[in-house]
């Protein structure tokens, strides 16, 4: 058997041929013996070994006999196959053909159990435990150890989320190596020695003892723990692995498309684990992807359609009744309906929303964006993102010479990108440059070079970089708030590869489905008659509207001014919108409000008809990642009453007498693909000019902000332990900035008149203050966003630390 040349690089790989248990195998040079054995189907027992971590050779479980190292001489002692590289002519004998190896492995297994409590019946890992399994397959049936075991107090909270049982720990150092090598958060380390060696909490960066294990990736340590030493506060003692039904799925919290495994029992998700997808997330996911899954079963979950009665109260209604009312109401205001579908849709549902807007409502007044934005971004998305297919991939990131981050913080906004970039940086393959207000902790862990930029002036910083072939530019959603930035990125030189990295799982699919005022499905520009005719033919309608529609801000404004009479809203948080107060006014003013949502929201209070739709766990569909990669997933929980957006919209359309050509998500996808990508000229790109920099007036600062991975978002509700691991909400600025504002460095600052944050001195341009977007305070409620100029005054003395 042979491992073929690495298909990604297409570079020829030097192979070495060795013999394992009398089977000849060729593997790429540098392959470890334990991995070469896997190629021929021989599983050598192991604990510390992990293919994505550097070898350590600590557990000694994978000992094999090597009678010939390839040079005619053998090793006198058994060798750890996880640390020995295959060599040409090497002869390896595993436990299958060598008594030496079998005895060594049995002896080691016996040692591992000496201080292990053998409390499998009450251990979370029992039933899926590498120690349990391998003790059965490679150990003695009975222990000869009758003496005294080492005991520890337990459990020890490593963080609010991760609990440590030191008695079960076999000291394989997977968790500590993961934290140091993969996540870059070395907050846990092995301490003490001998049998007293244990995982301990290390000092924090400021030297304080006992800093908790704060890492956005801490849950991975629980998953790779080969025993039950690390457990999650959330899942501890909740279920047995053999009672769980596992379904592969895709994480819904960002645009990364991380593979996950959903484990459910009796109709409830018990936990989520990282899936294994070498092309996307390898074997790691963020804590958000892992722990934030209870949001869809909160008490405010909508289970039945609601229709507002004559007294103004929402009354439970049958599906046919609710769809009929929704259809009648929408028909009554047809031609004056704004459509706000949100950014969390599958490609199927996004396509249904797009078709519904164009066919049933006859409008281009549709915008998936539920955040501060502008027309420049819509043009950029139409010209540079829609229909671009699989562009820059994770693998290309890992092999890029240089990756430039523009208005993007991968650790907070695209965790899978962060991990892949960090891996590339550690392999000394990739250099990361970030255009930002300061070097964030995430950027530090990427070894990034900072190109400092005052929010709003990123264009000048970009111009200073000599971008060329081999460079990859990743631009985040905040770029939309910087006039001229996306226009500048749209005209980068040849050879520079550009990728748009949105925050939400449905953003890219929405672009592909044309949920924009200037864009139709398949990258068809609204402005091009042929593109419209093509689409109309596919949908069997006379035509689709040819006027560029209203965007988010205009829909909201016009609704508040009674120029838009109906609003069709799906999964939009009012507090996320650029001007929440204005949006509330719009909802109050619009005579018709139809809402499709999973849980009650502010929109519910204004809706005439509320149509409950399924969360991702209760439906199948396809997310499209920032790369343009399709990530299909199947239904995990089959809830009879849970219906997709597609079914609901198709039902309303039929009530309106304007049916869509599909009723199910599967058919919606077929429809989307059969319409296909527009083969005509792409839409014109954005062409906005940067605004001239102006310093903030006295007592004011320029705000730099983004949403941290763990924040107060509603998609993370119901997980107290997880939320407790959020980074503290602090305001960062230079000492000079604090001083000029009269804010003591141990004090607090009040931004925008009401948002109070503890103060931290950091290396930011003078006059700029960074604050998290939604930890404790949702800045949007104050009308504050990236690049905003707002007041800053000193608050009370800090209570933190």
């Amino acid at each position: 058997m042979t491992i073929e040349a690495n298909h990604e690089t297409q570079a020829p790989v030097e192979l070495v041929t060795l013999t394992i248990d009398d089977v000849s195998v060729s593997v790429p040079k540098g392959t470890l013996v334990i991995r070469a054995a896997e190629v021929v189907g021989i599983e050598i027992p192991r604990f510390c070994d992990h293919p994505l971590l550097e070898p350590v050779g600590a557990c000694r479980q994978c000992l094999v006999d090597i009678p010939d190292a390839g040079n005619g001489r053998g090793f006198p002692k058994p060798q750890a196959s996880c640390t020995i590289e295959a060599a040409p002519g090497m002869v390896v004998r595993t436990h299958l053909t060598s008594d030496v190896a079998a005895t060594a492995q049995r002896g080691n297994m016996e040692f591992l159990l000496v201080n292990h409590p053998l409390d499998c019946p009450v251990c979370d890992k029992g039933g899926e435990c590498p120690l349990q399994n391998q003790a059965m397959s490679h150990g003695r049936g009975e222990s000869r150890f009758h003496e005294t075991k080492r005991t520890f107090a337990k459990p020890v909270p490593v963080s609010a989320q991760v609990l440590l049982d030191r008695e079960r720990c076999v000291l394989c150092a997977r968790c500590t190596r993961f934290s140091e090598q993969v996540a870059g958060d070395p907050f846990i380390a092995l301490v003490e020695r001998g049998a007293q060696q244990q995982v301990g909490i290390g000092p924090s960066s400021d030297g304080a003892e006992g800093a908790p294990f704060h890492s956005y990736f801490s849950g991975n340590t629980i998953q790779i723990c080969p025993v039950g030493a690390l457990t999650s506060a959330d899942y501890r003692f909740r279920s047995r692995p053999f009672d769980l039904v596992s379904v592969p799925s895709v994480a819904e919290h960002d645009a990364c498309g991380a593979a996950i495994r959903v484990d459910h029992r009796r109709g409830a998700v018990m936990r989520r684990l990282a899936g294994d997808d070498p092309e996307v997330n390898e074997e790691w996911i963020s804590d958000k992807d892992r722990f934030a899954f209870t949001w869809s079963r909160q008490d405010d979950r909508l289970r039945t359609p609601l229709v507002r009665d004559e007294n103004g109260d929402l009354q439970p209604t049958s599906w046919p009744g609710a769809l009929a009312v929704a259809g009648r109401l929408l028909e009554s205001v047809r031609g004056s309906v704004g459509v706000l579908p949100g950014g969390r849709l599958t490609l199927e549902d996004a396509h249904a929303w797009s078709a519904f807007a164009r066919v049933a409502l006859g409008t281009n007044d549709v915008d998936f964006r539920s955040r501060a934005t502008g027309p420049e971004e819509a043009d950029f998305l139409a010209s540079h993102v829609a229909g671009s297919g699989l562009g820059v991939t994770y693998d290309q990131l890992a092999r890029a010479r240089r990756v430039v981050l523009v208005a993007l913080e991968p650790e907070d906004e695209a965790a899978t990108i962060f991990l892949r970039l960090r891996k590339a940086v550690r392999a000394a393959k990739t250099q990361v440059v970030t255009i930002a207000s300061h070097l964030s902790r995430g950027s530090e862990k990427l070894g990034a070079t900072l190109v400092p930029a005052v929010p709003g002036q990123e264009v000048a910083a970009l111009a200073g970089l000599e971008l060329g072939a081999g460079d990859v530019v990743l631009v985040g959603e905040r770029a939309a708030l910087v006039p001229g930035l996306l226009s500048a990125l749209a005209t980068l030189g040849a050879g520079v590869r550009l990728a748009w990295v949105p925050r939400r799982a449905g953003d890219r699919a929405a672009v592909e489905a044309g949920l924009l005022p200037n864009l139709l499905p398949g990258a068809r520009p609204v402005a091009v008659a042929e593109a419209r005719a093509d689409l109309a033919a596919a949908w069997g309608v006379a035509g689709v509207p040819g006027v560029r529609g209203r965007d988010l801000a205009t829909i909201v404004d016009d609704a508040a001014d009674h120029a838009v009479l109906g609003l069709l809203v799906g999964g939009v948080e009012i507090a996320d919108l650029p001007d929440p107060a204005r949006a509330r006014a719009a909802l109050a003013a619009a005579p018709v409000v139809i809402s499709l949502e999973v849980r009650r929201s502010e929109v519910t209070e204004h809706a005439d008809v509320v149509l409950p739709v399924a969360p991702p766990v209760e439906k199948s569909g396809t997310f499209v990642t920032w790369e343009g990669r399709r990530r299909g997933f199947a239904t995990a929980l089959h809830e009879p009453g849970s219906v997709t957006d597609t079914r609901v919209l198709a039902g309303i359309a039929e009530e309106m007498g304007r049916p869509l050509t599909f009723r199910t998500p599967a058919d919606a996808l077929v429809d989307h693909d059969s319409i296909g990508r527009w083969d005509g000229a792409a839409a014109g790109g954005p062409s906005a000019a940067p605004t001239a920099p102006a310093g903030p007036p006295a007592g004011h600062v320029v705000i730099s902000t983004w949403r941290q991975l763990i924040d107060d978002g509603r998609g993370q509700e119901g997980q107290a332990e997880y939320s407790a691991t959020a980074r503290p909400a602090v305001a960062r600025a230079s000492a000079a900035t604090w001083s000029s504002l009269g804010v003591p460095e141990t004090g607090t600052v009040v931004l925008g008149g009401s948002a109070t944050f503890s103060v931290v001195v950091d290396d930011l341009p003078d006059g700029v203050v960074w604050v998290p977007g939604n930890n404790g305070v949702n800045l949007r409620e104050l009308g504050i966003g990236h690049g905003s100029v707002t007041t800053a005054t000193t608050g009370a003395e800090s209570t933190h630390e």
Partner: protein
Amino acid sequence: MTDVLTPVLSAGWADDRAWTLDAYTRRGGYRALAKALTTTPAELIDLVKESGLRGRGGAGFPTGMKWSFIPKDNPNPTYLVVNADESEPGTCKDIPLMMASPHTLVEGVIIASRAIEAERAFIYVRGEVLHVVRRLRAAVREAYEAGHLGRDIGGSGMNLDVVVHAGAGAYICGEETALLDSLEGRRGQPRLRPPFPAVAGLYASPTVINNVESIASVPAIVEHGIEWFGSMGTEKSKGFTLYSLSGHVKRPGQYEAPLGITLRELLELGGGMRPSPDGTDAELKFWTPGGSSTPILTAEHLDVPLDYEGVGAAGSMLGTKALQVFDQTTSVVRCVLRWTEFYKHESCGKCTPCREGTWWLVQVLRRLDSGQGRAGDIELLQELCGNILGRSFCALGDGATSPITSAIQYFRDEFESGMHTPSAELFPPVASTLFATEATA
């Protein structure tokens, strides 16, 4: 018998204030350095290679060959690290050497650094011996003041800075890669090899790690030549070395002699075994040739030549030449238990066999020591040792098994007695213990 001794390293130990630069210079110190400064690095390496000097830290690896492994094309700086973390039970040669004549080591460090072209050298001293740390630091300071260290040493253009670093009291840090981790400020745990220290050692740079005595032997070789050096010792174990005689012997201490001397000769030099409490001459029961990690030997091995080959042929290892001598009052079970408790306490915890194996061994031995042994315990001990030996990450685990397996080999009946009689009854501790008054009498 005194002509058997060959005091070279220990020659000036009795001088007045022997540890000072003045005293060292008066007895010819730093003459070898002057000679070395006019010798090329390559010639120095060849000289040490041809001298046949082998590592005195226990493993006996040829010192010159170790130096020659340093790659010449590596862009990183080369470092010399002196392993002065002397912690092996019974071993007590480097600490007296550094106390009595620290400049011998400093001179050796300068010459060795010249040979491997290092501009920075580290002496990693066991943390508990603060007096040695102070004395070494004083010697290094004197050497700087005399121009033997620093920039352009002796006008030769050679630069060298020496750092004396105190460990924190862990036996494992005597393992060379654990020592490097500790020196870098990490927890001392052995590193995976390859890469070997010669290629990626301290701060991932080419590094030579030598024992104190090995480095201290270099000036004499440079000064007197390889023929003089080869005139002492045996064919494959050349030169002089420090034998540390301790235990139930009349005059314990350092005996510097050519390699290949026997314990019988050394015991005669040391005045023989101590008298028994009952007045009769004590009998030699067992002894270690090179610290507790080397398998014990018995009276039948009195005439084994104490060189690398001779001790190896007798089934043990020369090790650090720490000759711990035990008479017939000693319980071998109790002695082995004490050693095993040491290894359990010092196991770094990195690998399973050493960490868990020593934990288990101690409990079985305690049982036997208290007369509570169970049928099969001896076989269990042997099997556990077999599962540790050659399976551990580093040699600490191997060393932990040596006293147990060798003691069972020679004194199985005593372990069998442990099934019914406590060792304290068979061998009252008061009889074997060397009390302070007795040792200093």
